[in-house]
């Protein structure tokens, strides 16, 4: 058996694949965050909560109404997106143009609120969600057993990421969004309905988070605090990629999944520190992240 630093090659390949899968998750989550920061300059500390809402909604919709996975895949993000738009309309809008820090505080408050209410309603142990039947089982790739569901996650997550990137970087709508970020008032002076655009963008950003939440429901423990743990890791990913860089968030997401996976293989205790270490190093070398525009 070929060994690399004392790890069999087969195991290593498996770990790499797992890394990519997790990376796809990070990509999806950090993408939403990057869209919201990049386009609205909102530091969305409620992103974890929106992810959680997506997962919780999936479970609750199933328990209460028997809504199946496929419907939930659309319905849950939609509901969370609408919730996000309401949050934007009634709360975030009032602090537009203020320092970033206020958006951080406000969304942090919203996250605490949402999380706290759900904790009181549903507890913290988690809600049960069964794997959809068609995803049960997996294939043996030789070097590892790949559950079908993980294969699906990687495919759909990357597809959504690419679609979003294309829409923002290559379409007129995307240009409106980018310009609106810089000088919303002037854009509005040109005749663009900026407030609506902002609502939709925020709604879309949190939809991405909620979508990741739905994907997570069958494989992770669904609890009101599931988002708060992953939040700053996802932030780190966005920063490494360069805040506001849509493509950067995607690529870095996948990259960080892999790096974290490798750390989990070679030196597991460092696996949660490694992303922060990478971040410090990257920002030393490139002050605005890997793909950030220079200031």
């Amino acid at each position, binding site marked *: 058996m070929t060994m690399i630093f004392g790890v069999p090659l087969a195991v290593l390949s498996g770990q790499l694949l797992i890394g990519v899968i997790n990376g796809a998750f990070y990509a999806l989550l950090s993408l939403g965050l990057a869209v919201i920061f990049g386009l609205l300059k909102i530091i969305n500390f409620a992103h974890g909560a929106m992810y959680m809402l997506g997962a919780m909604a999936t479970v609750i919709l199933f328990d209460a109404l028997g809504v199946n996975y496929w419907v939930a895949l659309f319905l849950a993000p939609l509901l969370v997106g609408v919730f996000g738009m309401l949050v934007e309309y009634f709360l975030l809008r009032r602090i537009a143009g203020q320092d970033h820090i206020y958006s951080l505080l406000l969304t942090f408050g919203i996250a605490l609120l949402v999380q706290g209410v759900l904790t009181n309603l549903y507890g913290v142990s988690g809600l049960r969600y069964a794997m959809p039947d068609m995803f049960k089982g997996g294939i043996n790739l030789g070097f590892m057993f790949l559950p079908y569901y993980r294969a699906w996650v990687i495919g759909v997550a990357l597809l959504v990421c690419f679609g979003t990137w294309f829409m923002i970087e290559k379409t007129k709508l995307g*240009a*409106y969004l*980018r*310009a609106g*970020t*810089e*000088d919303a*008032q*002037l*854009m*509005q*002076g*040109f*005749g*663009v*309905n*900026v*407030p609506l655009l902002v609502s939709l963008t925020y709604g879309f950003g949190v939809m991405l988070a909620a979508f990741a939440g739905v994907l997570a429901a069958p494989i992770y423990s669904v609890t009101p605090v599931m988002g708060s743990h992953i939040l700053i890791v996802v932030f780190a990913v966005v920063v490494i990629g360069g805040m506001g860089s849509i493509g950067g968030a995607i690529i870095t997401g996948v990259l960080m999944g892999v790096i974290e996976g490798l750390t989990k293989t070679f030196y597991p205790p460092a696996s949660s520190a490694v992303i922060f270490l990478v971040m410090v190093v990257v920002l030393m070398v490139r002050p605005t992240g890997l793909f950030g*525009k220079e200031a």
Partner: protein
Amino acid sequence: MTHASNREYEQLRISGLHAFYGESHILHGIDLVVHRGELVTLLGRNGAGRSTTLKAIMNMVGRRTGSIMVNGEETMACAPHHIARLGVGYCPEHRGIFSSLNVQENLTLPPVVRSGGMSLEEIYTMFPNLYERRFSQGTKLSGGEQQMLAMARILRTGANMLLLDEITEGLAPVIVEKLGDVLVALKNKGLTIVLVEQNFHFAAPLADRHYVVEHGQIVEEIRADELSAKQSVLDSYLGV
């Protein structure tokens, strides 16, 4: 549609306009009228409130009272994007070039609000600098190039009333001259133009009328044909 009837058409009527930035009261009752096809300038010293008047028309100041009619429609309750849709094109004092877009994207950004705007080719012919730098980041342009870009992009939208704030600022004399020609051409096409200018030499031959703004009020209205007669009044207002 005769030229004469056009002249009578009130494209813009402002009455009793007050405007505030937070605590500070900037405009103290502006009254003015601009007819279709007219070119009117707002003159005054630094800080008189000319830029603020344009911003107030676009609903871009903190708070306003009074009345602003565009095309006979009251706009005090309108959001800025509705005002733009009425055919108003605004070129701000500080240019507002978007750094996340390249020059061409900046140029094509403002949505077309009416037909009859200039085409991209026409604009590039007019400003060859912009053509040359069309793929570089908007804010990497030189100061003057940014000024050209800011002006050029509203020509594309087909707006029939232009609010232009210090558009010759920082431009080389050749370009200023060219801009003068452009404004004449636009006027001949029937566009209405409100021009805020420090460069009186540039504005004087173009304008039909001048309003002098001081301390947030209109203190004098001078028609082009009265210019020489009222020169001394004007000089004293402008502190010459």
